[in-house]
């Protein structure tokens, strides 16, 4: 399998704090890969580096798009989105005052182009574009299971639905790689199962999924491969069950001694 994203010797420090130290791993095209580690391990920092929100201190992030490789270390976040990398956030970040449909429509932003004069004159091309935005937004809502809820205000929806709306919005940017930051946090078992099903359907649509998750049931249930990081360093990588039984991983989660006991 060809890698869609290669992370090579990535470093990120905030002042004296080294959040990421020499992280290297590949993400293969078409897989669901889990990124786990204890709190403060640097998972979200890694996300932010890939998404362009943080600039890596050193190292390279290489994204493969249609046989072309692009280095995205230090690219602007909007450019990264345009390349085909979308993400959701650990603490849900929706456009609270807008409707569910408008939230997804905004996801279409980077794939559309009308501006001020198009909006005022409502030229033919602008109208067709607007129609396409509405149609595809509706499709993405249906895909995540929010069909017919387009007119609700985003912030008034239940927590689990907000999570799914955020995924719909990310999908609307037509990503090749989707990064989900703790999507199952705060979900009940049924919602988690639905979420796992949704992730598999996303993968089946040809989108690679990178998942940060603390809920091990979800990670073990859906991921084909898992990367573990701890204190900003690469710790282990492999099949979910192998990683789960790796003494180093158990030690990182439960502390020294726990591995020996097990």
């Amino acid at each position, binding site marked *: 399998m060809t890698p869609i994203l290669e992370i090579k010797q990535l470093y990120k420090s905030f002042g004296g704090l080294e959040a990421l130290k020499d992280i290297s791993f590949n993400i293969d095209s078409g897989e669901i890969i889990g990124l786990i580690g204890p709190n403060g391990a640097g998972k979200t920092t890694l996300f932010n580096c890939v998404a362009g929100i943080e600039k890596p201190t050193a190292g390279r992030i290489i994204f493969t798009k249609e046989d072309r490789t692009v280095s995205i270390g230090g690219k602007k976040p*909007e450019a990264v989105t345009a390349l085909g990398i979308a993400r959701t956030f650990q603490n849900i970040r929706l456009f609270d005052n807008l409707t569910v449909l408008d939230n997804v429509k905004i996801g279409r932003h*980077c794939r559309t182009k009308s501006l001020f004069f198009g909006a005022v004159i409502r030229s033919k091309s602008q109208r067709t574009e607007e129609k396409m935005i509405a149609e595809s937004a509706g499709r993405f809502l249906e895909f995540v299971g929010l069909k017919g809820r387009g007119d609700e205000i985003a912030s008034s929806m239940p927590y689990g639905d907000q999570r799914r709306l955020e995924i719909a919005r990310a999908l609307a940017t037509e990503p090749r790689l989707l990064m989900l930051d703790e999507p199952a946090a705060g979900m009940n078992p049924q919602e988690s199962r639905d979420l796992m099903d949704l992730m598999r359907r996303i993968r089946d649509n040809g989108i690679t999924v990178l998942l940060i998750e603390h809920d091990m049931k979800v990670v073990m249930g859906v991921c084909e491969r898992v990367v573990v990081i701890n204190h900003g360093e690469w710790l282990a990588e492999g099949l979910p069950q192998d990683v789960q039984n790796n003494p180093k991983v158990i030690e990182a989660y439960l502390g020294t001694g726990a591995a020996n006991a097990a």
Partner: protein
Amino acid sequence: MGKSEPYNLTRGAKIRIGLLILALIFPFFPFVSDYLLHIVILIFLYMILALGLNIVPGFNGLLDLGYVGFYGIGAYTSGLLTYHFGLSYWIIIPLAFINGAIWGMLLGAPTLRLTGDYFAIVTFGFSELVVLFLTNEIWLTRGPLGLPGIDVVSIDLTLFGGPKWEFIGELPYYYLAIVMVLVTVFVMYRIQDSRLGRAWFAIRDDEVAAVSCGINLLAYKVIAFAISAAFGAVGGSFFARWVTFLSPDMFKFWESFLILCMIVLGGMGNIWGVMIGAVILVSMSEILRELLPLLGLPVEVRFLAFGLIMVLMMRFRPAGMMPIAAVAAQMRAGRTKRKKTKPVVAIKK
């Protein structure tokens, strides 16, 4: 939509049509004096300005304290072009629009990277700079002497062998102002429901999420600032040809504050709310102007009253009289759950 028959108009549409008809026949009511008509035109002018300013704090969530600078630029653009070149007002409108947009971009492009209060201070500084320029560059603006004798608006058809009709008295300006308000409202509604408007709302609600959707923050903020400035300049161009006299002290900071008050009072981001804010504050300003001297107080005390209104609004209805739909929905939900909701649309810090 196209199939709707006149009988099936929604309540909102009925109110709108009713108000428009009322506005059109208003000058012919027996009690309407020239003075009253003048004030209503002033209300329309401030509606245009408030709708223009609304783009920045209402649609984008950025505090702009220097809007009057663009109003002044538009007014002097109009005044000077008329004074020196005798240009027709119909040509001046697009020129003022473009000039406003250019200055909006010139100010916005380097400064819109700043956030919250820092940006507000820059805009405030800019508007003061405009006043200083208008006061001191006497060769261009005649400085504090002002610019008198600007031609009135006219419809000149002599080129086509038709008549030339000059706008004398308040009545023609009244209808011109209505047309300009209608165009402004039309543009605002169209923007609100477009890719551009959605990008702005996204920036207002969450900048990080907006960026993740591929929105270039700086570019869209500059566009917002330029369009906002352009409407301010168009308002100014009307003002110049209407009062036919300009002086730099007409464009003091107070005007920015007054327009901002209209937006906060009416409901930030809500087109109708902003217009109602203009109606209330302009009429109140005029009433206080008459009332305060009777109480033995200087007329400037009215700004104190505006300040008091702002404080009360912030305390009791931080989202304004007509909050945008989502905020209104949340406030209702908060009320039924007996839970205090935080104001959702607030200026970014």
